[in-house]
């Protein structure tokens, strides 16, 4: 039997990482050259390749630095291609290339994994989709957070100015439940063929559940989702973007009634919004450029203002267990790029 590692040495190494300011608050796996080499061996990309840059803070991230941070996050080496794809997908988001990581909104990446890689690496594709409990889901998301903290140097209270942040920051990595979804995989919406191992990503401002399990009418479910999407609190600009992570039960109910994903998106685009009076009550009825502000004008009180301008502003994913009719509205920071990134070796 292999003797257990020396706990005091392990503790000392963990404390060393804390003392350097590298940790997100939880213990890190101390990264060594042999470990990081195993990560780098999983990809044909050059360790010096720059995979992201935040111009205003003068920092970038290379494949090598991503590997060190992924190792520290607790990833296994074989997860590394998924980390790289997730990071590439995030860097397609305007907000993630700009000031998003510094924002008072404190947005959280939402990473969606599709295709065979989900099972090859043991991603959770079923119950508890938003976590925790599963190493690939938890550590891939955490790796992104460590890259932002360490490679970009954007740390809380300094260059990162989140007012409250949000639950789930650096921990949301869903593997779509393709097996129980009635619709094509999310990566297909992002432009890739079905059965491709792929990652999509965007930034979230929060998540809110829609628990609707006692109606046989799919329009009731859609109306409930639309009411949640249409809350005034999240309306800052003329347009908004809110995805829906449907549970398999809701998705199947909708599909059985003949709804394609595009039908669901069209229904939500038509029905999400508020009256002028509702917006005025919340001080959000006026527009300056694209920003909402309080306007005393009551002439538009009866008009219904729609808030989702295109299907891309209401992306649809299927995740979770087929054991209750509970779905999640995910509020997107900025807008999703509409593209997925293939996981490559």
């Amino acid at each position, binding site marked *: 039997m292999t003797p257990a590692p020396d706990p005091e040495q392990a503790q000392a190494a963990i404390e060393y990482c804390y003392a350097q300011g590298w940790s997100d608050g939880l213990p890190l796996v*101390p*990264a060594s050259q042999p470990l990081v080499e195993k990560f780098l061996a999983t990809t044909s990309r050059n360790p010096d390749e720059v995979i992201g840059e935040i111009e205003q803070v*003068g920092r970038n991230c290379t494949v090598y630095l991503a590997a060190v*941070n992924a190792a520290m996050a607790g990833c296994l080496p074989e997860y590394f291609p998924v980390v790289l794809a997730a990071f590439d997908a995030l860097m397609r988001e305007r907000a993630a290339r700009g000031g998003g990581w510094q*924002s008072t909104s404190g947005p959280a990446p939402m990473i969606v994994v599709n295709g065979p890689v989900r099972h090859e690496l043991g991603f959770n594709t079923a119950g508890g989709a938003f976590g925790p409990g599963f190493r690939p889901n938890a550590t891939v998301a955490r790796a992104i957070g460590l890259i932002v903290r360490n490679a970009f140097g954007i740390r809380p209270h300094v*260059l990162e*100015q989140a007012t409250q942040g949000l639950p789930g920051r650096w921990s949301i990595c869903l593997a779509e439940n393709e097996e129980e979804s009635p619709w094509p995989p999310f990566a297909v919406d992002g432009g890739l063929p079905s059965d491709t191992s792929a990652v999509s990503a965007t930034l979230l401002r929060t998540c809110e559940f829609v628990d609707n399990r006692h109606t046989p009418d799919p329009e009731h479910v859609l109306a409930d989702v639309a009411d949640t999407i249409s809350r005034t609190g999240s309306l800052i600009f003329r347009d908004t973007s809110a995805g829906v992570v449907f549970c398999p039960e809701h998705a199947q109910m909708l599909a059985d009634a003949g709804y394609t994903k595009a039908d669901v998106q069209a229904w939500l685009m038509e029905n999400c919004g508020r009256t002028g009076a509702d917006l005025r009550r919340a001080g959000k009825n006026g527009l300056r450029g694209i920003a909402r502000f309080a306007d005393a004008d009551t002439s538009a009180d009866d008009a219904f203002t729609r808030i989702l301008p295109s299907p891309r502003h209401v992306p649809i994913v299927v995740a979770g267990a087929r054991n209750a009719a509970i779905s999640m509205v995910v509020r997107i920071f900025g807008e999703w790029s509409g593209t997925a990134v293939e996981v490559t070796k």
Partner: protein
Amino acid sequence: MPYPILDPTGTTATATRGPQAPHAPRRRDLRGATVGLLVNTKQNAAPFLDEVGRLLVQRHGATGTMARTKVNFAAPAPDDLVKEMTTACDVIITGIGDCGSCSASAVADGIAFEAAGLPAAAICSDAFRVTADAMAELRGAPGYRYATTPHPVAVLGPDQVKQRAAQVLDDVMNLLTEPE
């Protein structure tokens, strides 16, 4: 220990404006000066800077103002905009730094104009001092001075914005000039 623990931060800095950013020579006063106003689109930034500019003309003898808007508040001003304002103006006011990224970038803009030879005064909400200071350090100008106004700015009405502009005026003058 056979292997060191690896550093996840890297050392590759890609900042283009280099270490030890220069500090532009100060003017004795603002008589005859054109004041550049770099507005970052944050709520109340335009009326705030307009009023600061108006007061500098009215009370301190500046000739006039030239306002330009930076479309992406999170990023530093594009080089061509810095160049245009440097050519046309004598001193620069940037702001309002009123969010995580835009406070930092308002200060970064101030430092860019200093490097181009113009005295600059960035104005930030006082809630963002730490991030503004951190950006100054990143830009090679640790301890770079800027003006602050109490947080919040976005909710102020037109008259309150004018009061705030008047309150910050002395600090702005102190940043831009060095009377003999």
